[in-house]
């Protein structure tokens, strides 16, 4: 018996019957390996690198000193540890006084990312630094202009004197809302006491920073979280509200989803391929049974084969993954300039595990059907060529798919969306295919074209099997479409947030008389300025004549205040003619030139303060009070690094006040000397350079986009394999008919056309239904998972049917041609 199993197995190998099953398992194994290894490592590397953005892996933020043994705990857990204290203070230098944002750091700062300091004001050289010496200070570029000081000069902060020892070129954890905050001064944390600026009641921000191994960080998180008070917060890079955090979270969700879909597709390929294999063996098994083979014998033969194939495919899959990962990892590392952490053993375990699970769960049902083939089949094939799946197979497959989804995603919602829409699509498919076939049958009789007639009648005759095929085609196309659209959406969303040539400098404090001069100067140099935003600082004092609280955001709560919630700080008010970039009108009407005393407010701001269209807002600007009517609510994309405002006023209001202006521009590399000159001739201007920030951001976005594309390739491969296996399987069912017609003397052209028409109809149907299902899944995902706003993707509706029709019919035609190349005698022999 053993030698029989072995001999049959060798014969199968020789005939290539098991190749598609093997290919599907190899794909499943290597793609799981790839997902869990490369993408996971890429993600880790990206996260590692983006830790730069908070200069640490974790930060505890608090407005008061945290009374916990944080340093000791960090030490115990082998975490790096640093402290920061931030406070606003006037800085005095060269007889000028400027409000600065002081950052006092311990000597380990920064734990991650690069703090780059230049030793002169205008030069481009900069050195990497960690910590700052006692008695020294590093200043933001614009402070040099504002204070009219140079490196080596002295400045005073409170009661203490500092020597300026450098200019800040890059501060890893600089705030994103950079253009409205006071310029930075960095000093040593041990100098804070000397300044005597920090008093009870002053505005302070304490930051305790940690960095280290993932597991240790997790342990630290578990320890510290329950101990933190309400006004203390533990943050990591993705919990922030930076554009980066959003991008990373979405990328992570995408990788998860795409990984899931890749595995689903590989599973589908395995199921379809094993069905194909079993179809080809119905006759053989029936023959074995006629010859008296017992069920255990048949089981031993085929389970033996599949076991061998699964094991071999897993080995090959891991081998392929291992070979593929070298160039891929190298490419990724060099392209993104990151070092991938070592993969460890878990990808291997995951890959082997999923190979086993997919291999077993998705081949077993078809095998069990194979074992149940009646010996009578040798004499009479009752139901054409295919055995239609009974209900339990469907349920078994659905359950396995669900368990797989849950295992990989750990998200019930994601699993339910994918599975639910999948089931709905199948139901829709059954209804549509039934209708079309019914319609087609009526039409078929009147068709002139013989090929088309054969195609339609054969579609009808095998309606049940065709449904199974349609499901295979649809699933493959649908899932690939979903992944394709989402990765496209995400990438284009990011690209829109950081468009090529976006402003990388902000300039404000431009006075009315300076405005034309600045305009002219920039025009001369061919540097394009964006709009000049008038700027007015105002304090929100009332809403609908009700006086509001002036307590700071974070300190206000309804319990401790009798007043209505206010803005929490002074606001920047402005006025623009057109709705700003990536703002959207949600309610009311946009301000126009004839608007009087009107205002447009940002959505979150309106929500927090409970403001709606029609409310009256009172502002104190300088000594005068203005009252405006809210006529619209806007949404704002805060991730664009463009000037944005909570409150925009109608143009009539700003006319009555002396305003400064804010503008932004993209400064070319070679114009920094000119820029320094400009700043020297307009010393009151404030310049903020966000180039480093944008570069860093777009780098991360590039990295993530690459990860997404890599995943797309794997998904497309898996999808093609499903299509290929399904086409083969469909052809298997058409073979008998093709051979018979061929023997009867039907021309190759007729037969080929018949098959092509059939596949065109199947492919189009599958593509169309796949597009509808993909659109549904996308809408649900966009709204419930990715939070990127629902949108209809028209490209999908075109691509689905076109790709479906083309791929399916080309693959079908190719395989049929091979069949037709053999002469009839061979065909008849192969039929046996």
């Amino acid at each position, binding site marked *: 018996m053993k030698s*029989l199993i072995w001999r*049959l197995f060798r014969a199968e190998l020789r005939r290539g019957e098991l190749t598609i099953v093997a290919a599907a398992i190899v794909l499943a194994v290597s793609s799981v390996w790839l997902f869990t290894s490369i993408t996971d490592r890429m993600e880790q590397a990206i996260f590692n690198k983006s830790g730069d953005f908070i200069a640490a892996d974790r930060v505890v933020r608090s407005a008061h000193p945290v009374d916990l043994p944080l340093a000791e705990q960090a030490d115990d857990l082998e975490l790096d540890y640093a402290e920061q204290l931030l406070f606003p203070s006037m800085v005095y230098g060269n007889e000028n006084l400027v409000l600065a944002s002081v950052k006092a750091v311990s000597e380990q700062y920064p734990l991650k990312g690069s703090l780059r300091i230049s030793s002169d004001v205008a030069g481009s050289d900069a050195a990497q630094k960690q910590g700052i010496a006692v008695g020294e200070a590093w200043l933001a570029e614009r402070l040099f202009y504002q204070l009219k000081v140079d490196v080596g000069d002295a400045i005073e902060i409170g009661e203490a004197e500092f020597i300026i020892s450098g200019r800040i070129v890059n501060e890893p954890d600089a705030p994103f809302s950079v253009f409205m905050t006071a310029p930075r001064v960095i000093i040593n944390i041990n100098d804070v006491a000397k300044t005597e600026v920090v008093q009870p009641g002053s505005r302070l921000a304490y930051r305790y920073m940690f960095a280290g191994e993932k597991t240790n960080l997790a342990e630290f998180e578990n320890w510290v979280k329950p101990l933190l008070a309400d006004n203390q917060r533990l943050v990591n890079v993705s919990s922030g509200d930076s554009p980066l955090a959003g991008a990373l979270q979405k990328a992570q969700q995408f990788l998860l989803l795409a990984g899931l879909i890749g595995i689903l597709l590989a599973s589908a390929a395995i199921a379809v391929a094993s069905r194909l294999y079993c179809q080809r063996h119905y006759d053989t098994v029936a*023959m074995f*049974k006629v010859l*008296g083979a017992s*069920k255990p014998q048949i089981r031993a033969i085929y389970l033996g084969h599949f076991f061998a194939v699964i094991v071999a495919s897993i080995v090959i899959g891991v081998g392929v993954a291992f070979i593929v990962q070298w160039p891929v990892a190298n490419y990724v590392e060099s392209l993104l300039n990151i070092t991938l952490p070592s993969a460890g053993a878990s990808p291997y375990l995951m890959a082997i595990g999923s190979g086993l699970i997919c291999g077993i769960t998705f081949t077993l049902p078809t095998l069990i059907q194979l074992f149940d083939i009646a010996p009578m089949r*040798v004499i009479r094939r009752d139901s054409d060529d295919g055995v239609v799946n009974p209900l339990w197979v469907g349920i078994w497959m659905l359950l396995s798919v669900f368990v797989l989804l849950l295992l990989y995603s750990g998200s019930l919602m994601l699993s339910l969306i994918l599975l639910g829409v999948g089931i709905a699509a199948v139901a829709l498919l059954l209804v549509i295919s039934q209708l079309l076939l019914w319609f087609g049958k009526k039409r078929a009789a009147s068709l002139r074209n013989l090929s088309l007639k054969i195609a339609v009648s054969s579609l009808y005759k095998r309606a049940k099997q065709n449904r199974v095929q349609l499901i295979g085609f649809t699933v493959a196309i649908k899932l690939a479409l979903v992944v394709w659209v989402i990765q496209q959406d995400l990438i284009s969303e990011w690209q829109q947030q950081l468009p090529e040539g976006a402003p990388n400098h902000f300039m404000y404090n431009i006075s009315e008389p300076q405005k034309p001069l600045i305009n002219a100067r920039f025009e001369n140099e061919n540097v394009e300025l964006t709009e000049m935003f008038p700027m007015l600082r105002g304090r929100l004092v009332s809403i609908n004549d009700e006086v509001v609280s002036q307590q700071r955001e974070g300190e206000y709560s309804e319990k401790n205040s009798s007043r209505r919630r206010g803005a929490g700080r002074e606001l920047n008010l402005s006025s623009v003619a057109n709705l700003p970039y990536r703002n959207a009108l949600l309610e009311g009407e946009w301000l126009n030139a004839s608007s009087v005393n009107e205002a447009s407010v940002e959505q979150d701001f309106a929500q927090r303060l409970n403001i709606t269209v029609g409310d009256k807002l009172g502002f104190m600007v300088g000594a005068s009070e203005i009252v405006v009517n809210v006529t619209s609510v806007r949404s704002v994309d805060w991730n664009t690094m463009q000037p944005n405002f909570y409150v925009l006023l109608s143009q009539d209001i700003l006319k009555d006040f002396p305003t400064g202006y804010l503008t932004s521009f993209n400064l070319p590399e070679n114009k920094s000397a000119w820029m320094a000159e400009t700043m020297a001739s307009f010393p009151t201007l404030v310049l903020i350079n966000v180039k480093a920030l944008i570069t860093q951001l777009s780098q991360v976005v590039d990295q993530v986009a690459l990860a997404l594309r890599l995943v797309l390739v794997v998904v497309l491969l898996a999808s093609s394999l499903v299509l290929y296996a399904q086409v083969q399987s469909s052809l298997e069912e058409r073979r008998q008919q093709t051979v018979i017609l061929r023997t009867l003397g039907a021309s190759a052209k007729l037969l080929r056309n018949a098959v092509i028409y059939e596949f065109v109809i199947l492919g189009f149907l599958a593509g169309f239904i796949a597009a509808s299902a993909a659109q549904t899944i996308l809408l649900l995902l966009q709204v419930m998972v990715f939070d990127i706003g629902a949108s209809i993707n028209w490209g999908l509706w075109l691509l689905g049917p076109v790709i479906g029709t083309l791929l399916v019919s080309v693959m079908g035609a190719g395989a049929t041609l091979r069949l037709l190349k053999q002469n009839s005698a061979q065909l008849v022999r192969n039929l046996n």
Partner: protein
Amino acid sequence: MPTTESTLAPNIIINASGLNHHVATHAGNLSLLNDINLQIKQGESLAIVGASGSGKTTLLSILAGLDSASQGNVNLCGQNLESLDEEQRASLRRENVGFIFQQFLLVPALSALENVMLPAELKGVANARQLAEQWLEKVGLAERHDHYPNQLSGGEQQRVAIARAFISQPKVLFADEPSANLDNSNGQIIEDLLFELNQQSGTTLVLVTHELKLAERCARQITLQAGRIIKQ
């Protein structure tokens, strides 16, 4: 092994009584076999003849236990087929029955030799290969051991099928139109081979054919018409 007691004379190897068979079709119940009663003795050769569609193949498959009749009993080699499950019938076939079909029905993945070995291997015979070599030689295909079915002519394939049928030394051999797919001379070779080997091994032969000439080589003939035996 089932132990259904036989109440028949010991020399009766197949006993069919009161067989009726019908199938449900779109047009209603279609009756394929009507009140068939048939006894076949050990070592006897029986020809079932009749027009196309008269139910010959249907009867054969019921007698061989490949299909179950709607009504009636079949006793094969002392076992009542109705009382056996699928597995037990398979084992009965393995031990006692051989088949030859009109369409040869070789396993395409196996070589000629391996096809012949198959029943012996399923039975667990130790020297399957030697036996198969002997049988291939007897059917005149000693040279074609390693050829696959699609490399053999129809006549050669059928000779392999005959060797495969005889290798397990069955008590009963069922043959359904063994020469119908072959030309005259090849058909003749097959028929001669079949009767010769049958004689040598004393097997009971149940042969379905529509050729009277072939039927006459059997010791007994029955004629089917529309599912009834009209001539014993």
